[in-house]
């Protein structure tokens, strides 16, 4: 069998139904094999778009997302998506064509050392040197991508090797990787110590992240949180793991989190971190972060534990394994129930004094926060929302109350503008029965706007709600607050007529500039068949608050 056909067989054996990609010289054999393959190929318009679509597919389902690209520029165009998948632990397999083996190292046409370029941003990578490796590497790539802490795996295949003839035997069982054995089961002694410490805590906070979503452990997390009157907060990656709104929900924490969540972290005596990594957007100034707290850190990746914040009770394991054990141990302790009353009194005080709020307009002007609230209502709070990066992303995180996991797909770690549209396309391919809305910024949307063609060609009816404020809003906000209002290169100046652009791509285009009409226009957009772009003109200079200025402590929150 031709190795490229064996590759398709291996993908089929891995359960692949959809792949995203773009053909080119070096992956022609693969595309020839796809001609007869059983999976659907979605033709992206830029490899970065293919990569983010694969991420959106994976984030919406937990299944491995797959993207193809050719050698050289095709592969380098994937790099941002690969790095993004690395930062957000997205299970993805990227398959790139490479120039013929006799050309490698000669600076051949469309040659780039892609395994070298991507080395720091992959969970693992394979450079095929023998065609017989191809199916084996594919199986290994899938295993590595989805197990333990998920991440991107690259398989780079020289063109001549994918044309070679090999014997294909379907793989059986877990691949043999002597250096790769993720520890999923938490140490029960550590879990017992954690339960006992928690039973003694007077000011505990549960701080969860994307690891809960990745582990499919939202149910287990909710059960654990329901054990006692624990206050719960989540990172931007974890939103949906705990149902918002909820009486013990503090809101998101971090740079644009709520005061209640950040102040609670600041005054906590014990913080239980589940599947999060104490990123700088969470901790702010590290030396002043949660100065009174002891830390229980649960993570499947041992290297995350004590990386930024030293853990007092480290627990290496998958949240799905650790949380039920921790729940059982805690329950057996019969902790004093009303010991958290005083703590809640303090938290309720912060919540009452500093709710999330904005000053709404008194005329027809649409405030961006209002737009998110309208979107929440129009979608019944039950859509899959993707976003780009910036103010609109933070407002969505604040005002769209995610109650289920895998409904909020955004680029949290790398912060990739242009993520939203291709991710929405991937999510809609994966979940055709769900409403998928990309909340885009006008700065971000143009960065991968070419993917509008992909949605039309493959009949993928995503909706884009464009929060159009005419600026790189978050950068503008920083220049206003921290750079003495010296606005440089933040006004968009010239943007396309979005309605006409939508129509030019074969989308429906709509516009709304009046607050009183927004909900209705949104409903119409959602009910319209096919892809729709809704250009919403919002306040140009609104700032996203509250905010911990970069490098400051929770106590320094402004706004």
């Amino acid at each position, binding site marked *: 069998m031709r190795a490229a056909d064996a590759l398709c067989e291996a993908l089929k054996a891995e359960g692949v139904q959809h792949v995203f990609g773009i053909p080119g010289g070096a992956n022609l054999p693969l595309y020839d094999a796809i001609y007869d393959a059983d999976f659907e190929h979605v033709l992206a318009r830029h490899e970065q778009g293919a990569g983010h679509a694969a991420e959106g597919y994976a984030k919406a389902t937990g299944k491995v997302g797959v993207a193809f690209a050719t050698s050289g520029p095709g592969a380098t165009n994937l790099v941002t998506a690969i790095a993004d998948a690395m930062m957000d632990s997205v299970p993805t397999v990227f398959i790139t064509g490479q120039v013929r083996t006799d050309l490698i190292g000669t600076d051949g046409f469309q040659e780039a050392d892609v395994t070298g370029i991507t080395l720091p941003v992959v969970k693992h990578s394979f*450079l095929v040197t023998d065609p017989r490796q191809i199916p084996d590497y594919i199986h290994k790539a899938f295993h590595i991508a989805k197990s333990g802490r998920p991440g991107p795996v690259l398989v780079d295949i020289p063109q001549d090797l994918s044309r070679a003839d090999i014997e294909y035997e379907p793989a059986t069982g877990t691949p043999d*990787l002597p*250096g*790769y054995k993720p520890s999923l089961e938490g140490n029960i*002694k550590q879990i017992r110590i954690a339960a*006992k410490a928690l039973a*003694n805590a007077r000011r505990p906070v549960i701080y969860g992240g994307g690891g809960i979503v990745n582990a499919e452990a939202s149910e287990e997390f909710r059960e654990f949180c329901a054990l006692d009157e624990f206050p719960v907060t989540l990172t931007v990656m974890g939103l949906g793991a705990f149902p918002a709104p909820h009486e013990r929900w503090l809101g998101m924490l971090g740079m644009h989190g709520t005061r209640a969540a950040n102040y609670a972290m600041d005054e906590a005596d014990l913080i239980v971190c589940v599947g999060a990594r104490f990123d700088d957007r969470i901790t702010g100034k590290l030396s002043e972060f949660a100065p009174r707290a002891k830390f229980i850190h649960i993570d499947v990746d041992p*290297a995350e534990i004590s990386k930024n914040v030293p853990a007092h009770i480290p627990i290496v394991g998958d949240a799905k394994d650790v949380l039920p054990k921790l729940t059982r141990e805690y329950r057996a*302790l019969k902790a004093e129930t009303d010991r958290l009353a005083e703590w809640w009194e303090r938290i309720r005080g912060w919540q009452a004094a500093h709710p999330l709020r904005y000053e709404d307009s008194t005329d027809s002007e649409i405030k961006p926060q209002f737009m998110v609230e309208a979107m929440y209502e129009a979608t019944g709070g039950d859509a899959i929302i993707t976003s780009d990066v910036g103010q609109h992303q933070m407002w969505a995180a604040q005002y769209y109350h995610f109650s289920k996991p895998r409904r909020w797909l955004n680029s949290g770690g790398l912060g990739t503008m242009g993520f939203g549209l291709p991710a929405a396309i991937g999510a809609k391919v994966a979940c055709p029965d769900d409403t998928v809305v990309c909340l885009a910024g006008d700065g971000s949307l143009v960065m991968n706007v070419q993917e509008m063609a992909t949605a039309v060609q493959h009949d993928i009816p995503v909706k884009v709600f464009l929060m159009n404020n005419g600026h790189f809003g978050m950068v503008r906000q920083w220049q206003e607050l921290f750079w003495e209002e010296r606005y440089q290169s933040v006004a968009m100046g010239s943007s396309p007529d979005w309605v006409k652009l939508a129509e030019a791509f074969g989308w429906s285009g709509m516009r709304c500039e009046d607050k009183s009409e927004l909900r209705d226009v949104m409903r119409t957009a959602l009910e319209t068949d096919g892809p729709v772009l809704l250009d919403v003109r919002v306040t140009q200079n609104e700032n996203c608050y509250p905010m911990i200025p970069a490098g400051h402590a929770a106590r320094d929150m402004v706004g």
Partner: protein
Amino acid sequence: MGEPGTPDLVKLEDLEASNVLTGRKHILSLLVENQPGVLARIAGLFSRRGFNIDTLAVGPTEDPDISRVTLTLDGAVHPIDQVTKQLHKLVNVIKIRDMEPDGTVAREMALFRVNAAVENRGEIMQFAEIFDAKIVDVSRRTLTVEVTGSQDKIDSFERMVRPHGLIEMARTGEVAITKARPDA
């Protein structure tokens, strides 16, 4: 309750986070898959995470599919625990051992080309004898000496010959192996 090893009550004030800096030199011995690019992954990891390798030695093991990478790092500067955990994430790294100083035989080899004009040639040769070193090359004005031993021994040899004019020095970096139990 009453599980062995854990008290019934864990007081928060008694909890300690482990100290991340050990303050001493560490020898990490890695068994890695003998495949192209493995060293690049290790080197890339060190540069990306800002870890500084003092010495690095790579070579085959008794198993042709497996190579050994021995590296030394300063535990006063780097959290060794974090370094090992990051290394463990590399799929090609099979095993890592943080070598216990007391249970380890560590050796390094070095070549020194030293100024050895007639008036100090004797002294250099004496040093070589004291350090159990070999003279492997001779010219009219220089001697090349091969020294094998612990890092400290090679450091002291360097200190001895440097005043005479050290022209060139090449060191391999330490390789290490655990000591066998006496009854093994």
